[in-house]
């Protein structure tokens, strides 16, 4: 019962900064019993925020928050509190001085407690800022940040076929919590939401139960709910162009975003029922890859470069002109790449006896205007996949760079 002993241990030592390191070491030592790297902690502090170029975990809880305050100081205070809490939780520690089971007997516990006994589970907490943090809908300056709005933090146009639900779109601040244990991810969002009360409220949130991408060459490629390997040609941490594809560079500006990245989230419903009635021939033609191992239809194995010029019978391209891979491929978009980090989701059913299931698409890139935007414009127009998907939610956000211990996420912006 190693889980129990860890729970007691943490409860006793609390989660002060000084003991944090000890707690983390203990957590690792205990979780080694299960001999599973998936349980380990991912460092929170650093020049980039974790949860982007770090290996994609299995579970997601993503949340969009609306600020209810009009005071800049409140926002800063919340970001400080979130930073401290995120640093503790990602290390496998409890939130607050007293944590979940200690402290005044007549006070509610500071940590909500459902992650007690669980290892860090690779938790990452990534915080991003929506355009509406900088300016309100009529262009007004909400928190004295309007002058620092990055030009790249754009509003997306309406793409053909969009059926966006306002209740799943937009927000002032976003939190992406990823972990290898769903309970740990939910615990993170829940505790941040709690710390935010009075300053921010949850606008919408989304659970993802399985990763649909790999962000490291060491990871096996997972499958999306269409049953295809997803993430094969993704930006991987080992790629020579990974850093310049993802992180805002000094020349790009604004200065406070250097080392940060721009995120796009799209909740994409899949009409899996009609998809499941589609022949294997059509399914493979739609993606331009084989279902069994994700090899391009031009031949080879999963990681063979597609040969878009390869012709089949009657000089018809082996990789169809309107296939997803061909349309999304960097060769069509000036070589620009994005890092995809999406998750499979199911949210119950739709009232017509069908599952509300799909892909919670997440992409990170140095500039949305040259990557997600043109790619999605092309996909929305021509992708044969469109017959089986529907975009139902959307978000664009600026992910500021990481911070060192003692700092808080977003500090460079508020001090810019």
């Amino acid at each position, binding site marked *: 019962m190693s889980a129990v002993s860890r729970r007691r241990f943490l409860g006793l030592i609390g989660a002060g900064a000084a003991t944090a390191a000890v707690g983390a070491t203990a957590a690792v030592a205990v979780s080694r019993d299960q001999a599973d790297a998936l349980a380990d902690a991912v460092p929170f502090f650093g020049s980039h925020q974790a949860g982007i170029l770090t290996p994609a975990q299995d579970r997601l809880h993503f949340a969009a928050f609306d600020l209810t305050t009009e005071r800049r100081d409140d926002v800063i205070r919340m970001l400080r509190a979130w930073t401290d809490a995120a640093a503790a939780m990602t290390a496998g520690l409890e939130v607050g001085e007293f944590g979940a089971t200690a402290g005044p007997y007549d006070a509610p516990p500071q940590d909500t407690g459902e992650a007690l006994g669980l290892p860090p589970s690779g938790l990452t907490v990534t915080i991003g800022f929506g355009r509406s943090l900088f300016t309100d809908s009529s262009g007004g300056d909400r928190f004295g940040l309007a002058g620092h709005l990055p030009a790249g933090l754009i509003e997306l146009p309406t793409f053909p076929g969009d059926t966006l639900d306002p209740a799943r779109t937009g927000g002032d601040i976003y939190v992406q919590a990823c972990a290898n244990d769903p309970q740990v991810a939910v615990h993170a969002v829940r505790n941040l939401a709690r710390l935010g009360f009075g300053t921010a409220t949850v606008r919408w949130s989304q659970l993802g139960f399985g990763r649909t991408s790999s962000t490291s060459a060491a990871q096996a490629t997972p499958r999306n709910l269409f049953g295809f390997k997803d993430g094969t040609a993704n930006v991987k941490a080992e790629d020579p162009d990974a850093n310049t594809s993802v992180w805002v560079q000094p020349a790009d500006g604004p200065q406070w975003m250097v080392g940060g990245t721009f995120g796009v989230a799209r909740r994409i419903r899949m009409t899996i029922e009609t998809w499941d009635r589609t*022949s294997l021939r059509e399914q493979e033609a739609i993606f331009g890859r084989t279902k069994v191992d994700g090899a391009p239809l031009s031949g*080879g194995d999963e990681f063979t470069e597609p040969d878009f010029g390869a012709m089949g019978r009657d000089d018809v391209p082996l990789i169809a002109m309107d296939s997803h891979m061909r349309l999304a491929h960097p060769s069509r978009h000036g070589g620009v790449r994005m890092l995809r980090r999406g998750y499979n989701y199911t949210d119950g059913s739709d009232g*017509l006896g069908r599952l509300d299931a799909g892909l919670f698409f997440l992409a990170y890139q140095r500039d949305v205007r040259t990557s997600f935007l043109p790619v999605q414009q092309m996909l929305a127009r021509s992708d044969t996949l469109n017959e089986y998907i529907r975009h139902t939610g959307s978000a664009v956000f600026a992910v500021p760079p990481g911070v060192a211990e003692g700092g808080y996420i977003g500090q460079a912006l508020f001090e810019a």
Partner: protein
Amino acid sequence: MKGASLPGVLTAGALVALAGCTSNETTADNAIAVTSSDTACEVSSGQAPSGTLTFNVTNAGAQVTEFYLLAEDGLRILGEVENIGPGLRRDLVLAVPPGKYLTACKPGMTGDGIRAEFTITDSGADLAATGQFAEQIQQAADTYAFYVKDQAEQLVADTDDFVEAYLAGDDDRARALYAPTRMHWERIEPVAESFGDLDPKLDLREADLEEGQDWTGWHRIEKDLWPPVDYRPMSPAQRQKISKLLVADTATLLSRVADQTYRADQLGNGAKELLDEVATGKVTGEEEAWSHTDLWDFQANVDGARVAFDALAPVVQGKDPELAQMLESRFDDVQAALDQHRKGDGFVLYTDLSPNQVKRLAASVDALAEPLSQLTATVVT
């Protein structure tokens, strides 16, 4: 899930059950391995018992290859898989009666291919003679071609009437003609869609518009006839322009289908696509956002699918009688569900349906669509 397969699913029948096992990772017990290189065509066995056969074809060469099972005369094709890229693997699944055959790999997709004799011994499996179906399929294709042309002709004629009323400002009459006229379109929609350019011109919904794209066709007029609040009606000149396009594009459709021919898989896939249309567009009320005449479209899609199925029915009957019977009865169920919402010559509006009624309609559509998706494989295998 390696190696696991779900035999039978909903549609029983040996053929369908085996088709379920054709994942490239699995090898059906009686599968025959074929390795096609640039210079050789290795077939793991020169014979097999009659019944449903699976050839696992792997392309070990550097060129794109194809694999064929040919009749003894070396001319008639019983089955083929094409466009196998280097390193890829694909299955050929087919039902073959006893007799002498030829296998052929065709690396580079030219010439007669690398051939070898192949014998099917009599296993006692009950299989119809292969020649029998060819004629029935031809007949089905002819019947369907005639139907498509006939619907296109009626569409042209009825569109003229509709446009006349619309241009005369007789909006009541135009509204009355809108849904019945569109039914001719909806019955043959997959064919119209196959032309690529015509479908967006004639049937694009507002939600599918791209920024800056011109909106033409039926739904543009629909919005003008059932205007939402704050809508600016079209001027007579605008009506003139949009009507002219509608008539011209419809004429183009008729000319294109005039001598169009169809293959069995196009009939089968067309029927399936029509049901997909119902499932995603009509039963959700998305297609007719302003007129709410979705049930007319629903009926027309089902009509079109039924015609394709009926045309192919003799083939399905011969190959998988259980599937034929199931499709027959599920088509009847959908029709019965739809008939409950008839009103006058047409139907009630989508907005008059209760959530429960919509759910029941959706369930009947899904119940039909699932076995209908087996139609193509059954007919062409």
